[in-house]
Each structure stands twice: as C-alpha cells, then as structure tokens.
C-alpha cells in the first residue's frame, strides 16, 4: 500500500464518517438532545441500499437519492415518535427514547435481512478500483457542499440555524419551530442514509453496526467542539486519519515492525478511546471549541 492509496482510503472513510457526524450534530443543535439512533439510521441506510439494489439493477450513485428520500421519511417518523412528545422533558429522555428507536431498527433489520453481512453495490458500475474511492469522496463532498449552501445561503437554512440557536426568539420572528425540528430530523436521517450506502459498500453492513457508528459520531462531535458543524467534519476526518494511519504505521516506519501487534484495528480503537478520554478530561470544550456551550 503506497501513500497515495492511504490518502485515498483516509478521505473516503473520513467523508463517510463526516456525513454520520453531520447528521448527529444537526439534531443536537436543533433540539439540544443526543440522537442515539443516528448510528442505527446509518445501518438502516445500508440495508435500504441493499434492498433497493435487489429490486433495481442500478449503480449506487442512482440508488443514493432513493435511499436518502426513504431515510428522510424515517427521520420524520423518529421526530414524531421519539422527539416531539418529549420536547419539554430533560434531554436524557430523548437519549433513552432514541436508544429504543435504535433497538427497534436493529431488530427490524435482523428480521428483514438476517444477521449476516451484506454489501451495497458500488457507486459506479464496474469493478473495484481507485475510481470507486474517488466517487465516494466526490459524492460525500458534494453532499456536504450542498448542505453548506442550503444552510448558509437559503432562507430555509437560516431558519434552521436560527431555530437551533434560540427557539423562543425564532418563534417570535415567525418561524414554526416544530416544523423546523422535523425538517432537521429528515435532513439528518437522509445524511445517515447516504453514509450508510457508502459505508455498506466500503465495508459491509450488519444489523449491529449502529453502535459503532454512533460512537464515531459522538466522538467526532466531541473532538470538533459540541455543536460545531465544521468541527464535526474535522473531527470525522481526524478519526479516519487515526484509523487509517495507526495500522499503517509499521508500513511507513519499518522500525515499528517488531511490535506490530500494537497496530491492529482493535488497538487503534483502544488508542483512539484513550485519546478521547484524555481530551474529555483536559479540554471538555473540544479541540476546536471556543467554550463549552451548556445547551445540554
């Protein structure tokens, strides 16, 4: 594996993680609550891609809009069932209700698809190759770019951001706050769907994948500064950097071969966990956060 390939892998993985983390932080900002089902929505996106692919013989890039639209509907349902009834209760209520949503999603997937791993079709028709990784990077970048334009340069985007920052005042200037929150869930879930399709092609998808992805999103947002959208993307890229570079270290620095056991996938996860714990203790406002905003 040469350096170019490592960079490609890194960006493809980081781009997919960034979509997961973005969905997580959008809901966090709009509601002040953690959506613990975000990882399971990624898993659901993966299976949605698998099942659409079994019906239509299309490449991933054409399935993507279908998956995102389907997951947007799921997001609306999550908002209606697990968020809106609890919006006046302490934030841990939503934490628990979304854990329940995650359990439901996970077991529905097991019932529908069984426990074995499935793969989504590649984005482009044809075989494996650097082209696929490039397509993943481009698709994710396009989605993040579109999201950026929507948020920064449209009235809807401004209203979503205003709702996230101050709900009372948003209502007092004419914004229908609940509608904005439902829209946020829809956007966040469709991002999770896109991430699910990409990750189900990069790796595989199984019903229990959600726990892994929610932890990644949670960590990315913590690194990037609680509530920061740019920070969430940066955090996701840093996680990918860590995950790709750690196992590759012995290849890059031959002297480390002797202790190659310390550079397994698992050890990289443990190392990342320890780094995050240290970060939480020493800089609870995140690496890039200004100051921890106590919306929690």
């Amino acid at each position, binding site marked *: 594996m040469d350096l170019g390939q490592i960079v490609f892998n890194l960006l493809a993985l980081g781009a997919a993680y960034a979509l997961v983390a973005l969905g997580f932080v959008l809901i966090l900002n709009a509601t002040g609550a953690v959506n613990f089902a975000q990882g399971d929505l990624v898993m659901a996106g993966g299976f949605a891609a698998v099942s659409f692919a079994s019906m239509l013989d299309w490449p991933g890039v054409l399935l993507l809009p279908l998956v995102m639209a389907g997951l947007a509907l799921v997001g609306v349902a999550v908002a209606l069932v697990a968020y809106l009834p609890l919006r006046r209760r302490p934030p841990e209520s939503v934490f628990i209700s979304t854990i329940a949503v995650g359990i439901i999603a996970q077991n529905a997937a097991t019932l529908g698809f069984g426990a074995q791993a499935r793969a989504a079709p590649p984005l482009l028709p044809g075989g494996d190759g650097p082209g696929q990784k490039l397509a993943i990077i481009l698709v994710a970048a396009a989605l993040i770019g579109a999201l950026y334009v929507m948020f920064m340069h449209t009235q809807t985007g401004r209203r979503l951001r205003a709702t996230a920052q*101050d709900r009372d005042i948003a209502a007092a200037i004419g914004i229908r706050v609940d509608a904005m929150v439902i829209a946020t869930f829809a956007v966040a879930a469709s991002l999770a769907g896109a991430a699910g399709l990409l990750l189900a092609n990069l790796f595989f998808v199984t019903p229990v994948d959600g726990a892994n992805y929610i932890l990644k999103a949670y960590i990315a947002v913590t690194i990037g500064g609680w509530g920061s959208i740019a920070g969430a993307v940066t955090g996701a890229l840093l996680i990918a950097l860590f995950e790709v570079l750690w196992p590759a270290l012995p290849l890059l620095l031959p002297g480390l071969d002797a202790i190659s056991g310390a550079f397994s996938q698992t050890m990289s996860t443990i190392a990342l966990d320890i780094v995050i714990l240290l970060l939480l203790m020493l800089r609870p406002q995140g690496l890039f956060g200004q100051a921890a905003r106590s919306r929690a």
Partner: protein
Amino acid sequence: MLLEIENCFVSYGQIAALRGVSLGVPAGGAVALLGANGAGKSTLMRTIIGLLRPRAGRIRFAGTDITALPAASRARLGLGYCPEGRRVFPGLSIRDNLLVACWAGRAERARRLEQMFTLFPALGERPGANAWQLSGGQQQMLAIGRSLMNAPRLLLLDEPSLGLSPRLTEEVLGRIPQIVASGTAVLLAEQNAARALSVCGHGSVLRLGELVLAGPAAELAASPDIRRAFLGG
C-alpha cells in the same frame, strides 16, 4: 387602537406577574412602558408576542383577536419583537440575522437589508461578521434591525438600553422617532423613564404587575407620582 390589551392576567406557576393589565397602542403611535425591575414589563412584552399565555384577558391586534395564536403567527401578522437582553442569533452573521426575520420575497428582502444598513450604518460595515463578535451596542442595533425586517406595524422594544453606556443608550433610543416616522407604532419598555418619555407620546407605569399610572408623556415626566412608583416614599 392597533393593539388592545384587555384585563390581562399572567402567572409563572403560582406567581402572579400581571394582574389585570389593560393597555392600548394607537396605529403610528409610540407608548413608553415604564416600571422598576420586576414590575412586569418584560412579562407583558412576552405575552403580547405570544411567548407567554395569559391566564385571563384578551389581546387584539389590528382588529383580530390574537390571544390564542402562537408566536410565529403573530410575528407574521405584523408584530416585531426585540427581546430584553438582545438575544441575537450568535452564530449567524449580521446579514443572516436580518434576513432570517423577513418573510417577503427575495428582491424585497434585499431592499429591506439596505434600509437597515441605512438606519444603522454600523451594521453595514461588516455584514458578514458573526453576531457574537459584536459589541453590546451593535448587538442591540442588530436586534432592533431584526425586529424591523418584516416591516411590522407594531414594534415591541424590551429594554433596549439594558447594559449599554449612557452614550449608546442615547444612540439606540434616538432612533425611535425615525422608526415611528416611518409608520411603525412602538411600544417601548424601559427603566430609564426620563429618556423613554422624551421619545414617546404616551407613557404607562407598571408596579408589581399592575398599571398604576398612564398619560401623555409630558405630563408623566413632570409628575411626582412617577418617582414614587419607582423608589417608593
């Protein structure tokens, strides 16, 4: 009357904050709502915009009963609200803070933005700056600008001088005659009674949730009762 409040009672839990307040604001007029801290000024403002619900009483705006309407609908009917403590959207730029509050089409939005930059030149200097980077005075102007962006028929200004130096207070309150001249009625809640009465035609004084004094600004300013309402004695 553009705004009519009839016998409003508002409570926080069991604490009565407003006890039977009635008040009117004529179209195109300016009314100062005076009273010490805790008298109920902000409560009344929040009740008018719809962030609080009265336990009893009615609110009519431009002939419509709005007592049961949610805040968002009231804002779109033509009520502009500039809250106590400014509460600009910190992470939005000056431009976005203004645009987000406007429900008109794209061209009209751009026109109103220019209007605000004319009214508050300081805002037009760095329209891309995030609101949290602004000084208190600039934030106050941004908050007022935001509440004017939907061209409201009535502007609710809640303690715009709070936390500002006397010079900045002067600058902010000094814009009110201009706003009224452009056809927007103003209800101004202020602790700074002398200054508020100098820019408003009428005044009303709240004390402990009740309206204790009302009258033309000139008469109130000269009345010894007003000092009593604030400092007792």
